[in-house]
């Protein structure tokens, strides 16, 4: 074994997986996990821990795997994270824990994400649940949104003894984990559902179909339903469009719509009622992880797929692994390309997308290379479907119905970075609702900090009365 290299992880063959929604990555088995665990140097002053937004004791859990004790590894993980099987799959480890790994200086860093996944999957398959022995303190806390921020905050509060209820607007808990991230990256039934069950096992209640700001307001929760503190983890749900001609044509989707139809509503499965006009030739506009998800979903639904991105490959915000997978599966990338108009036929359906070629200027003050159009470079791509994946912003539904809750010009809730404390007494916020669209693990980090801050707030308040 080459100690400088990661133990390779088994994956579904690209030709096969391009036609199914089964998980791409198959994960480590016991032997592979043990081998990879041996590569960890178990540094005394482990730098990887500082790279993790929830500060998991990484050498601690890896040591247990090496000893052949995945249950012990899971116990370590679940002290820090309510969603280890999710994080092992969707965290950008390459820019967090693994980026700081000492092994990575000379060779490849330890495959921390795949090891986390192994331990979490093993625990699930063997029926191991996190336990909650904390004494109930009788205080009620409300969590709005059941995505990564909300689940983490709720789980932590429950572990401290609080009586926690999560309010979810959709019919299924999980937020972006169920409506956004596709099945082939994050299996819903086996992984997401079971981690949510684990959060429930800590004593957390989840009420679905409750749209905060409409069904009930935050003020009502606090004044009429006895919640002493509220955490807002409502995410960034509003899709952006480009504002170019033809954008309201039939066949133009937001990535949110395309993915929600397919992931949450399971349009790919013909036994479900929700339809999807999948498209024959699809252009996905954007270069983030969501764009990759949309492109690979369209591919699996049978389409030929272009990803149209206005900067070059170097600037792609998506994870390298996702881009690599997308290329392997046959997604065609059109870099330095910017749409200027969506072409529409006489019946109102998309029949093409007009684009211009771009070039990058020297880095500006922000350090980013700004793309500018090349003269007379317009061309048309014949497509019948366009998926706009330009990012999302927070939904103003909650801020507009909650007096005293301030937002910035991007509709993001103003909250203290360390505590999540907002401008409204007793109300905390974190995740995409505060920072705009980011990652699962950053949202979890914010949920964790807010849980600690809520505990401190309620304890201090009790002492002062």
């Amino acid at each position, binding site marked *: 074994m080459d100690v400088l290299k990661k133990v390779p992880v088994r994956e579904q063959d690209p030709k096969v997986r391009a036609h199914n929604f089964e998980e791409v990555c198959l994960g480590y088995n016991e032997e592979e996990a043990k081998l990879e665990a041996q590569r960890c140097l178990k540094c005394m002053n482990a730098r990887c821990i500082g790279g993790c937004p929830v500060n998991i004791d990484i050498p601690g859990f890896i040591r247990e795997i090496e000893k052949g004790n995945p249950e012990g590894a899971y116990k370590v993980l679940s002290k820090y994270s309510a969603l280890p099987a999710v994080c092992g799959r969707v965290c950008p480890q390459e820019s967090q824990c693994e980026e700081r790994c000492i092994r990575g200086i000379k060779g490849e860093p330890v495959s921390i994400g795949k090891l986390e996944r192994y331990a979490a999957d093993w625990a699930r398959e063997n029926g191991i649940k996190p336990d909650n022995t904390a004494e109930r303190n009788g205080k009620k806390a409300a969590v709005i949104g059941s995505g990564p921020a909300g689940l983490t905050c709720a789980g932590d509060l429950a572990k401290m003894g609080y009586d926690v209820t999560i309010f979810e607007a959709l019919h299924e808990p999980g937020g972006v984990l169920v409506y956004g991230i596709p099945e082939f990256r994050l299996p819903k039934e086996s992984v997401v559902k079971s981690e949510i069950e684990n959060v429930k096992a800590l004593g957390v209640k989840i009420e679905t179909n409750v749209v905060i700001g409409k*069904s009930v307001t935050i003020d009502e929760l606090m004044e009429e339903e006895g919640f002493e503190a509220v955490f807002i983890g409502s995410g960034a*749900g*509003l899709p952006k469009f480009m504002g170019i001609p033809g954008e309201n044509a039939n066949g133009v989707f937001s990535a949110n719509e395309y993915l929600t139809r397919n992931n949450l509503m399971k349009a790919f499965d013909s036994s479900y*009622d929700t339809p999807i006009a999948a498209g024959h030739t699809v252009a996905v506009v954007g270069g983030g992880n969501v764009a990759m998800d949309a492109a690979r979903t369209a591919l699996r639904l049978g389409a030929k797929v272009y990803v149209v991105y206005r900067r070059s490959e170097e600037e792609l915000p998506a994870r390298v692994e996702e881009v690599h997978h997308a290329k392997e599966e046959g997604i065609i990338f059109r870099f330095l390309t910017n749409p200027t108009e969506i072409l529409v036929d006489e019946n109102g359906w998309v029949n093409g997308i007009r684009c211009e070629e771009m070039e990058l200027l020297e880095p500006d003050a922000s350090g980013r290379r700004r793309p500018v159009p090349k003269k007379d470079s317009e061309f048309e791509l014949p497509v019948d479907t366009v998926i706009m994946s330009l990012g999302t912003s927070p939904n103003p539904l909650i801020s507009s119905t909650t007096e005293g809750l301030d937002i910035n010009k991007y509709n993001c809730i103003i909250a203290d970075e360390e505590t999540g404390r907002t401008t409204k007494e007793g109300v905390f916020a974190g995740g995409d609702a505060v920072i705009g669209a980011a990652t699962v693990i950053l949202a979890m980090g914010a949920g964790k900090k807010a849980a600690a801050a809520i505990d401190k707030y309620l304890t201090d308040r009790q002492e002062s009365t």
Partner: protein
Amino acid sequence: MYKILKKEILAPNIYLMDIEAKRVAKSCYPGQFVIVKMDEKGERIPLTICDYDREKGSVTIVFQALGSSTKRMAGYEEGEEFMDFAGPLGNRSELIDEPSTELHEKKILFVAGGVGTAPVYPQVKWMKEQGHEVDCIIGARNKDLIILEEEMKKVAKNVYVATDDGSYGFKGNVNDCIKDLVKTQGKHYDCVIAIGPVIMMKFVCLLTKELKIPTIVSMNPIMVDGTGMCGACRLTVGGKVKFACVDGPEFDGHLVDFDESMKRQQMYKTVEGRAVLKEKEGETHKGGGCGCSDPTDR
């Protein structure tokens, strides 16, 4: 789970149900809608609220059994339960927030088309409860498709029924009826609120523009989540893109691009057709080869 407290067939294929949904019943107002998903595999169906009872904790919905999900919904009986019922969504009617004295001076004409009578009803009822008198036209193709006439008569000052074929009431469509009221009978209206099929709302707006009567319409486009997330319900109002679910569902009818909305409604027509076909023929319709069963076939 959300229990069906009452089920009634209002007209062929048109169903009324009272659903037990305490949070929605407590907080909803006329003009808002709910999303119903009757079981695991059902679609999320947006339906404008027809009535509510805050004490009983129930909300009344009216729907037409058209697609696969609404057809299955129609098969549910009293005592059975829908899996999901979310709301209220969208904004309440502007009427609700208008000062009562101003509202009292206003002569309002409600124009209801077909199943659109259901969302008109709570607004008229609300006006009655506040002590304001309004007129209402209920239009449909024929007598059999007129719904909620008796209920409407209890809350509106005048109810005019119009049928295209003249099988009941005024012979002609709702526009003919508006013309008759305004031009022939010399009635004056300060505001029209029109809810019904998009094509009806379009033509009502063309007429009221000519008559210089401000007009509000309620849009019910294709939607998935109903909370602003998917953007499927976008429409153009006064040259700006709006989401019906969070910016509406009610808009200034003289500013709505109805032609665009009608095209967008066609989006899943073929796919819905497929669902019907599948029901009749089972999996075989997916044969492929000729490409005729492709979801994007249009």
